[in-house]
């Protein structure tokens, strides 16, 4: 049996069941939610390296909806599953402070289902629908604590998100009116033969702009970033980790990149759009880090760094060269690991000390060694210190810039990297090193499950550098990068897939090239 629909059915079904669970015994909800995310990890790893097209309802790609598993979507699904497992593990004790735990886990899993659906779908309108599931769940989760700041941030986020969704739906409508279909592969086939200057070309360029505005808003690229520094710190820590770690990538970066490379194939049709992507990326990179340097709120600082690091991803992918795309995607995966770990450690210090202000902390490393250690690992990774994963991905992006002759962009990337290092040295100095303050003498390490989830992510941060070794690179990174650099192959892969008995439609392996 093909496992692909279960990637969506498992979190969806568990999300429907969990709100029915009794409020009095929160451990049942903990157990079920962790079970679901663990199952997702197993499912996504077992699908690694496959290229498959699944026809929902048995209809062919043109008529019905298809789920497409290729190098890129398999890569994203694993990231989502791994981070959500760490986050549910962390939630088990962290959420003791909040009520209504069954609803929390229900919303959490529905958000994961939305992300998985958006990643796997091969249909523009379906992308919009699943985007909305993930987005609506995240609006509710940001406001979950019902405090002043959380509600305010959530309202701002929800309004901007709804406007962004309107843009996306408008784009889908225009594509449908012009090309008569919303299937991504079918659209791509039709857009590939459009000549520049024709009305259809003009409409598709306008649509790409709408998608950059709409999905860029979800990815928090700079002119559209205003909601992120409010929304991400306000949420409970595991949700901040999910939002910064995977949500902005799954429904922002991934969706935008999929549309731009595989549906419209801007690399050939309109290279100017790629340049726009690079400019937006660099702008996010620079503005994000400048805003982060002056921050004293631990989580808010991390949120500004998310904007900056997403800028790196966009810069790498926007280069359009195979090396740039590889670097961008590798940085995306790395950022998911270290940024969610950083948010979890910020949550752990807040859990024990009750404050997010860096200047009030100090010397916590003596009392919370596991938290401090994993935070150090993550800080080194995000700052790009050599043996850690962040160093390699940033290096690849900078090398790709140089290779493509974009020296200005490379220079900005180096400058931003140095500023990131400075900013995280400040975090480490004020929070974990230095003299222990009087008031924190009685602080203890966080509960065991929270430590486990942080240590798991720290190991991931250390181990991900190994993805650049030839073997893992060929299995994990290359197939994902090939999907984008060979953007026009997407339509033929999906449309020419052969049907076999059990609807498992496997076409040629795209990683082989």
């Amino acid at each position, binding site marked *: 049996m093909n496992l692909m629909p279960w990637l969506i059915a498992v979190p*969806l079904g568990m999300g*429907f069941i969990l*709100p*029915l669970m009794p409020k009095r015994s929160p451990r049942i909800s903990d157990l079920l939610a962790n079970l679901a995310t663990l199952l997702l990890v197993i499912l996504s790893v077992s699908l690694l390296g496959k290229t498959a097209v699944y026809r929902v*309802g*048995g209809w062919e790609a043109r008529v019905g909806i298809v789920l497409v598993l290729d190098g890129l979507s398999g890569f994203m699904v694993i990231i989502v599953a791994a981070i959500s497992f760490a986050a549910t593990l962390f939630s088990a004790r962290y959420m003791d402070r909040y009520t209504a735990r069954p609803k929390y886990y229900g919303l959490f899993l529905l958000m994961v289902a939305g992300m998985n659906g958006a990643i796997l779908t091969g249909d523009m309108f379906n992308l919009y629908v699943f985007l909305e599931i993930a987005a609506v769940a995240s609006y509710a989760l940001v406001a979950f604590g019902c405090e002043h700041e959380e509600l305010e941030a959530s309202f701002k986020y929800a309004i901007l998100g709804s406007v962004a969704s309107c843009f996306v739906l408008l784009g889908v409508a225009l594509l449908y009116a012009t090309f008569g279909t919303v299937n991504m592969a079918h659209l791509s086939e039709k857009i590939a033969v459009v000549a520049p200057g024709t009305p259809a070309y003009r409409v598709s360029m306008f649509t790409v702009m709408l998608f950059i505005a709409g999905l860029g808003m979800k990815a928090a690229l700079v002119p559209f970033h205003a909601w992120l520094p409010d929304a991400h710190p306000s949420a409970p820590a595991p949700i901040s980790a999910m939002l910064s770690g995977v949500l902005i990538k799954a429904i922002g970066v991934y969706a935008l990149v999929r549309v731009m490379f595989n549906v419209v194939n801007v690399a050939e049709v309109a290279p100017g759009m790629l340049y726009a992507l690079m400019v937006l990326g660099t702008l996010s990179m620079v503005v994000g880090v400048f805003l982060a340097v002056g921050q004293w709120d631990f989580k808010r600082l991390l949120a500004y760094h998310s904007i900056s690091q997403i800028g790196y991803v966009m810069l790498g992918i926007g280069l359009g060269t195979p090396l740039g795309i590889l670097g961008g995607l590798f940085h995306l995966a790395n950022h998911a690991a270290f940024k969610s770990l950083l948010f979890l450690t910020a949550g752990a210090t807040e859990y024990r000390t009750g404050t997010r202000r860096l200047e009030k902390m100090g010397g916590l490393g003596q009392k919370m060694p596991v938290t401090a250690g994993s935070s150090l690992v993550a800080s080194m990774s995000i700052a790009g210190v050599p043996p850690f994963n962040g160093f390699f991905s940033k290096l690849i992006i900078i090398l790709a810039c140089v290779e493509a002759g974009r020296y200005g962009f490379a220079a900005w990337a180096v400058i931003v990297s140095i500023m990131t290092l400075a900013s995280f040295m400040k975090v480490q100095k004020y929070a974990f090193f230095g003299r222990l303050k009087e008031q924190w003498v009685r602080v203890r390490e966080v509960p065991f499950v929270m430590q486990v989830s942080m240590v798991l992510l720290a190991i991931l941060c250390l181990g991900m550098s190994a993805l650049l070794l030839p073997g893992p690179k060929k299995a994990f990174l290359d197939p994902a990068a090939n999907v984008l650099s060979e953007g026009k192959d997407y339509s033929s892969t999906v449309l020419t897939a052969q049907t076999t008995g059990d609807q498992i439609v496997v076409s040629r392996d795209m990683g082989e090239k």
Partner: protein
Amino acid sequence: MKGMSIIVRTVCHWVSAFIFLYGLCIVVYGHLTPGGGFAGGVILACAFGLMVLALGKESAVRAFPVGSASKLDSIGALLFLIIAILGLFAGGGFFVNFLQKQHPGEEMALFNAGIIPLCNIAIAIKVCASLFLAVVVFSVLRVVGGGSDDEFASEEEE
């Protein structure tokens, strides 16, 4: 919350019964005539909403308790998913209309179109329950500006 005058109550009692029947009709004939699970579900919820507005929250909640509404909400959604997964086992694929493929009914008949009427019913249950919940929760809240949690009374009885 008190209801309205006796005339309004009596009329609404009758009218909501008819609205309810109309909603059911829309749901069941969804695959033949305009309408379907969503429209029908919203109409059913409107029938309950009318009762909430006219008779007061207590009598409406007596007819359709909030606790069971929130359970029906999950169950309706789950039913829809189960129909989809049944397709995986009985028809060889997620969401395959296995009933229609195996037992095609007579065209234009009520019992026809395989899983479509079943899906309509599941959706109607789900939509009706969730919108009823929305109406009840939004209309019974006593929100006092600048209050603390204790003054905030959203009642979702277990």
